[in-house]
């Protein structure tokens, strides 16, 4: 329950902070932190334009996408407190529920019959497919390390102490951060601010969405970032009491948003053909974590 509230609160500010960081870095003042949320509210109040090519899939998809993110949010724990749902193997459920949302957002893009949106759909499905093994190897190694199989038990029994485990936590943060960049269509993979449809991934998929549906998609995107941020926070807080854990949650979310803003300010997007290589690298980083776990457990003789 706690995690749900915290994720909602973090989602309110997260994108605003990214935008603000980018503005400051480029020497502008920038909009207020809550501007993205006002944008969403404005969208919720608007009517919509639908393409004549589309079918009911196009109208249903944003709902499914948003619901899948909500559902994924329910299994994320916060330190000692469970997510609303917590059961053995919930991280599999997490990944697959998010995949359901992606399935629908991809077919919605194909529903418009636009070549650009089809292209975005193709890229989205390819990149998210490559990110799956990294997540599963990461969670598998953490399950091995902790001896448990649910998010809450895994995170609350991670023993951060030895030097190797610090290195591992750093690597795991890197992997989760990068997965969140892929899922959230952020800089090194995708450039949300580009003006050319050919170079977009996520943005080009939702070109035809408008009004309420677009609002749902944007909200889901904000929530997704906060969810991955919460997972990263969970790597560190373990069983720390709440009076320290909650401030550190916001601190880490803030740092993550600033980091993303800085990355977007000072980096260019990778070439599209290099993206798969980059994402596969994540899998090998996950394998490093796995070997680290084997080292800690002294499975190597």
């Amino acid at each position, binding site marked *: 329950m706690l995690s749900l509230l915290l994720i909602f609160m973090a989602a309110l500010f997260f994108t605003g902070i990214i935008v603000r960081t980018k503005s400051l870095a480029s020497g502008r003042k920038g909009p207020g932190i809550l501007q993205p949320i006002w944008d969403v509210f404005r969208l919720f109040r608007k009517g919509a334009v639908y393409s004549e090519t589309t079918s009911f899939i196009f109208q249903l998809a944003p709902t499914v996408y948003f619901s899948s993110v909500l559902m994924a949010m329910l299994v994320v724990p916060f330190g000692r407190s469970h997510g609303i749902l917590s059961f053995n193997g919930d991280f599999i459920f997490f990944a697959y529920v998010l995949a359901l949302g992606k399935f629908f957002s991809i077919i919605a893009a194909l529903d418009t019959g636009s070549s650009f949106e089809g292209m975005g759909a193709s890229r989205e499905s390819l990149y998210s497919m490559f990110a799956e093994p990294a997540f599963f190897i990461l969670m598998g190694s953490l399950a091995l390390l902790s001896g448990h199989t649910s998010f809450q038990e895994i995170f609350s029994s991670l023993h951060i102490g030895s030097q190797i485990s610090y290195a591992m936590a750093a690597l795991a943060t890197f992997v989760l951060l990068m997965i969140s960049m892929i899922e959230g269509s952020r800089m090194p993979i995708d450039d949300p601010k580009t003006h050319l449809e050919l170079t977009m991934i996520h943005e080009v998929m939702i070109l*035809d969405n408008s009004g309420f549906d677009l609002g749902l998609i944007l909200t889901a995107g904000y929530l997704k970032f906060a969810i991955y941020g919460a997972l990263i926070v969970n790597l560190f807080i373990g069983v720390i009491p709440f009076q320290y854990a909650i401030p550190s949650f916001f601190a880490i979310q803030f740092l993550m948003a600033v980091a993303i803003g800085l990355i977007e300010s000072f980096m260019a997007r990778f070439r599209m053909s290099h993206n798969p290589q980059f994402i596969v690298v994540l899998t090998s980083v996950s394998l490093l974590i796995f070997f680290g776990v084997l080292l800690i457990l002294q499975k190597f003789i």
Partner: protein
Amino acid sequence: MEILFDAAILNGTILITLLSFVLILALPRRLGFSITMLAVLCNSLSTSWIAIHALIYQPLEFTIRFGNFAGEVLLKIDGLAAWFILIINFTILTGFFYGLGYLKSYALSGSKFSLHRIMFLFFHLSMLFVCMIQNGFAFLVVWEIMSLSSMMLVLFEHENPGTFKAALNYFVQMHIGITFLTLGFIWVYHQTGSFSFEAINTYFLSNQNLWLFLLFFTGFGIKAGFIPFHSWLPHAHPAAPAHISGIMSGVIVKLGIYGILRMVTFLKSDFLLLGEIVITLSIFSGIYGILNASIHRDFKRMLAYCTIENIGIIGIGIGIGLMGIGNNSPMMYYLGFGGALLHVLNHSLFKSLLFYSAGSVYQQCHTKNMENLGGLIKSMPKTAVIFLIGGVAISGLPPFNGFVSEFIIYKGLIEGVHSASISQIILFVLSLAGLSLVGGLSVLTFTKAFGTIFLGQPRTKLTHKPAEVSLLMLVPQYLIITVMVSVAFFPQVYMIFIGNILSLMNPLRSAPDILTGIAKTTSLVSLYSLLLTGIIVVVWMLRSLVLKNRSARIGATWGCGYIAPNSRQQYTAKSFSKPLGKIFNTVLIENKQFEELNHGEIFPAKKSYISHYQDFFEHFLIKPITDRLVFSANYFSFVQNGRIQSYVLYGIVFILAMVFLTIFNIVV
């Protein structure tokens, strides 16, 4: 008394089949349909009754006479057999009724139907008996009847040379498979002097298990479609009529799995090594199958490759189960085999569903190339929704049934991660990554297929305007969806039966607390799938409420500034999966034929571009072997010279040889 009654029922099914064979031939053709329907109904209902009986109460055993050579043959319907019998009967029934509607468009070519009906009956009966027979010799005979009758069913459109070639390919590969099985049974016979399955048990008790099991695994694996024995599937499935492809992919392939599981029940040692082999092979089957599925544009071939992927997933379950026995871990045993058995059921449901709906598309549009389709959701909305449900389910996504079985198999893998030896840990973690890759790829595959066939705008102008198919074809599909939903939301019911089957399969490992634990987790998963559906419904209702009084305009798709788009400019299936094909170009071999634009060619003439993907194993493994075989066989072509005189001579030489060899006691 009970047993006598059941034996009478089984004999009755044989009698019914033979009788309807005669009747279909003898009576006027228009009665053929009713006779077939009656026979199919009788056979499936009666055997289902026996199977349910066996599943709920206890295994049934009885003997029937099987010719002079094998004599009295033991038939046994235990839980494993009953599970497969029920799956067979359900798929056969839906396939039969769907087929009635599907074959209507072939009504002009009436003469084919009698053969098709007779073969359908034989095919059904032989599959049922494959699950029951406990004698190697009789098993091979029935197995062969099954292969031959299914080949005849594939041959329905025999005037098409492609179909003929595919059927021949199937025929040859099935016989390579049966050779392995025959070798296995003869090996056991040689060692123990008996063809009965009990003899395999005694063989395994006293000899090394590894090689004989691998022999059987190869034989059954050809039927099941593990790589590199898979190459018949992508040929035979697209060639067969839709209801037959649905049944073949739904059940025939599963009988290979049945055979493997039956052999597993006799295994006595080498569990760990075999488990590792099976898991590794299965992971590669899964990834290879779905990679190929994702690039092919013939949607029936795509579904055939996807079958290979699902066989891989089932195989992972079997491997986990084997390693569970080896590690003495009942948890892994139940999760592995339980997941495999549930996935067998699930796959038979959604794969037949997908083949049926793909068949509906083929019937209406007369093309299997998704590149020529598009926008069918407007003209065939029901088929589109059915295909979408099948696609989401087969990608293993919640809230459908595919997720439940994949979740159980994932749980088995994670359970394996906690094992002691490092080699197993590494295997399981890599399998976890492999399975997740398979999941991601199947999302890509089915978004591509659904998106290109049903969404967007029609890419070509079809000669006949497609329309929704008849109710007769839709109802069997609704029925399948109902069962799928029941598996998705009440998996614990199915898991109880599977638990019973598994504890009877290996009574040593009976662990009721673990079973209830698994049933609880699966029911939790289904509950959360229900919750997900609930959330979707609530959000949808909120959306409708908010949008009730809002304006909604209809306009053209945003063309990014371009105002004259045409439907050929839509993203194609080929371009959708092209980046993937490029990344995996070592396995996905693309053959391209095109002429480049010459330098200084100011007025280019019309050019063509052809590209198709080749099967890696067929190209690099099977083709070189067959090429060399054909090459060496050429040297003996003088034997087959077309002169009757020489053929008579061969006969005489053979007879003389036999006579002299017997006289001189060389042949006894």
